[in-house]
């Protein structure tokens, strides 16, 4: 069955995420970060930041929620149960610190089929409360056996 490409270009509803100090710590600890900038407010302030600094891969926390509805969007038509993550790119701008509010827009950039698998590529663009770019992402999801 060929993949449905009609939804290419579809933009999903923007999501705004309020970055909390304990969420940064929780994430940093889950991935094994030991840099005090992520864990210790005083260390972060001494280094010139307003609060604890998010590790770069914290971008998953604020941008995934903008992509997630796309995985269940009927027009896009992903078979979620057979989806695996094929590839990922992130580019980072300004650092994110606790207290920031990050708005992310996700768009379906491409849908292709290769050797019986469907490839769905989403792009996310995340900016902080000052309008500064903090992260862009390219998310390649593979649906096995479309």
């Amino acid at each position, binding site marked *: 069955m060929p993949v449905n490409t009609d939804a290419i270009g579809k933009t999903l509803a923007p999501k705004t995420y309020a970055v909390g100090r304990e969420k940064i710590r929780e994430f940093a600890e889950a991935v*094994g970060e030991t*840099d005090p900038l992520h864990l210790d407010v005083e260390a972060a302030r001494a280094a010139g930041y307003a609060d604890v600094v998010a590790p770069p891969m914290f971008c998953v926390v604020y941008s995934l929620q903008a992509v997630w509805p796309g995985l269940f969007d009927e027009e896009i038509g992903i078979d979620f149960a057979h989806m695996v*993550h094929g590839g990922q790119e992130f580019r980072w701008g300004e650092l994110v610190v606790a207290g920031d509010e990050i708005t992310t827009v996700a768009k379906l950039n491409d849908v292709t089929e290769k050797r019986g698998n469907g490839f769905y590529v989403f792009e996310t663009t995340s900016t902080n409360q000052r309008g500064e770019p903090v992260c862009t992402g390219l998310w390649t999801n593979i649906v096995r056996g479309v």
Partner: protein
Amino acid sequence: MRLVQPGDELPGVQLTPDRYLTVRYAGASGDFNPIHIDEEFARQVGLPGRILHGLYTMAQVARANTEAGGGPASLKRLTVQFRGMGVPEVELTVTGTVTEVRDDGTVVTECSCGQDGKRIIRAAEAELRLQP
């Protein structure tokens, strides 16, 4: 700094994600795909069992780069392909090498993440701005 010319190696990262790591990462990241947290579901959809989140494995590659680059501000770009499925309770090893130092000071690295003799991330490329 160690990362000054092509061929220089990153110190790398080694760790063994414990049995419940995928549950903690699901909670921390918001990615609750049951293939990572539900053994039975994972088997039903044809996987060997619960698998690590690719983005968790990518976070280990990111950490190898930021630890070598001087902190979170050093990492400007990272791109990975997930080429195998990682599993809990088996050691992960991230290794990397500088491939290029550009005129503007950007250091490019190539990294991989291995587990049990297989590379589950290979040819990951990062761009770093080394921090003092």
